[in-house]
């Protein structure tokens, strides 16, 4: 019996020839990360344990991205903890405001996570790096503290659900729509404790930016990791930037799966997750006439260059509707600069959208775009839980950048085809 890509990566990092789902194993971690919300607890645990040094300073990133630029005094204190710890331990990958980005956009862009890695992050969207063909999963701060000390972590080997996406994408349908559709189909616990493997000719056609969006939201179905086998798109993306050697794995033809889910993408139109669950998904044409007050285009899910280009394509020559705030948040400094150089900012500014420095900010109701009671937002982010973007009586509709931009122009949840 063969192995899946997730099983192969875990076996290699456990020093084993093979592993089987359900087994408890201990693996070497290639790269670890934490942010300004989660690292303070990890640092506290690290110090209380009496640890003196990080297992490998080159393999730990601290990225203040959630409540930065510091939103208040307490946030400033949390960020200072990261900064001081990074200095004390000579961590080369502490990313200060002005050089930082949203962690899950930044680390792949900087070549710090590569195919074949085991990546562990104190952030649930660490699963994003599965798009590169890495085994990447989110953990809590205490698990991360143990990794900071030992460079190792225990896992139960997950079984895998294989999703096979075939057919041609309709206009305006993106990786975001495919993952929303998938979560809608299997539910927020549909892949709990399991790996989601995204395969098929429609995945092969997707750019790396869109693959990162898909793997990013595997956690929204409860998955341990989402993964896409590396191909030529991966190699082109990685070759320019990898700071460590990549290892390319793929699933064996006779690998064993819990379930195989075929999906004909040609039947899928742009999707929207309506409040208050990422699994509460329907085609945009069936959402109805929902007036909105804010649009957020950004986040670790959809703040990459291709997302901004898509938003600009919709916004070009148009204006954000009266009564709507449209916030655009490039996910990293490099994306920000490239978007500016391509003239996307001119399009956004002419449309009367606001452009922000990189931050997770509004996605988790932190700052930079909080909703009042009764307000509604369309966001390219990843969660629409109660109170996620502000007041518990506010609402978030999740969509692709194209649907978000069209919604900004029309002042209601809308498809770009309505423009």
């Amino acid at each position: 019996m063969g192995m899946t890509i997730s099983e192969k990566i875990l076996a290699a990092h456990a020093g084993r020839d093979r592993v089987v789902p359900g087994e408890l194993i201990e693996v070497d971690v290639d790269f670890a990360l934490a942010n300004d919300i989660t690292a303070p607890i990890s640092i506290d645990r690290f110090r209380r344990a009496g640890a003196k040094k990080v297992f490998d300073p080159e393999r730990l990133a601290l990225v203040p991205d959630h409540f930065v630029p510091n939103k208040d005094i307490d946030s400033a204190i949390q960020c200072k903890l990261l900064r001081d710890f990074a200095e004390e331990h000579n961590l080369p990958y502490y990313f200060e405001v002005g050089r930082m980005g949203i962690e899950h956009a930044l680390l792949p862009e900087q070549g710090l996570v590569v195919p074949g890695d085991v990546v562990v992050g104190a952030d649930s969207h660490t699963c994003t790096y599965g798009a590169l063909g890495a085994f990447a999963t989110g953990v809590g701060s205490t698990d991360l503290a143990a990794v900071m000390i030992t460079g190792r972590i225990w896992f139960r080997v997950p079984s895998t659900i294989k999703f096979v996406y075939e057919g041609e994408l309709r206009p305006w349908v993106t990786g975001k729509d495919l993952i929303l559709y998938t979560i809608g189909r299997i539910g927020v616990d549909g892949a709990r404790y399991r790996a989601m493997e995204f395969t098929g000719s429609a995945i092969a056609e997707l750019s790396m930016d869109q693959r990162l969006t898909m793997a990013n939201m595997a956690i929204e179905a409860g998955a341990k990791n989402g993964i896409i086998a590396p191909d030529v798109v991966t190699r082109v993306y990685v070759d320019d930037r990898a700071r460590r050697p990549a290892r390319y794995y793929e699933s064996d033809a006779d690998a064993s799966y819990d379930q195989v889910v075929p999906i004909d993408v040609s039947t899928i139109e742009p999707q929207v997750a309506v409040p208050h669950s990422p699994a509460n998904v329907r085609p945009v044409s069936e959402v109805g006439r929902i007036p909105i007050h804010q649009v957020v285009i950004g986040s670790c899910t959809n703040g990459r260059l291709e997302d901004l280009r898509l938003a600009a394509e919709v916004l070009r020559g148009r204006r954000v509707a009266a009564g709507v705030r449209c916030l655009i948040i490039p996910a990293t400094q490099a994306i920000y600069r490239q978007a500016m150089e391509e003239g996307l900012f001119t399009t956004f500014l002419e449309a009367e959208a606001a452009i922000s420095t990189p931050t997770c900010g509004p996605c988790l109701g932190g700052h930079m775009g909080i909703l009042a009671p009764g307000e509604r937002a369309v966001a390219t982010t990843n969660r629409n839980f109660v109170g996620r973007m502000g007041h518990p009586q506010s609402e978030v509709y999740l969509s692709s950048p194209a649907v978000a931009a069209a919604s900004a122009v029309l002042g209601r949840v809308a498809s770009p085809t309505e423009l």
Partner: protein
Amino acid sequence: MMILRGRAWKFGADVDTDLIIPARYLNTSDPKELAKHCMEDADPAFVGKVSPGDFIVAGNNFGCGSSREHAPIAIKAAGVSCVVAAGFARIFYRNAFNLGLPILESAEAAEAAKTGDELEVDLATGQITNLSQGRTYQAQPVPPFMQELLAAGGLMPHVMKRLAGGGT
């Protein structure tokens, strides 16, 4: 402390970490501060009603969403002795054991319990007794490795003990 006794506070399925502790309070990791806002967006009155030793009882996928350890920290600091649910999201599950917050999986016990029911839980055997309804349930056994973690007092003592012992 292996026998816990208290009242049940019942919640539904898919209780996410934003309901357990909204991100607007994550500019601190002080347990006392976090406890003040425990379950706030699910039931704003919860913190005022819960007594030390009480139980949170919920449906499947409890603790889904973010990896924030502030969620089990807030629950523990609010005085909740144990969470009984039909099932747990995986990061929350790890976090709870790492911190020493007892959690038990029993779909039957979770479904039958009503807010205000008096419960008794034997952590050693996983037996859950609903004293108000006069019914007893057996929770899913705690895997041996997780028992090891609990016995060590959480993940960090476990790790440090192994390092000191020169283990792998």
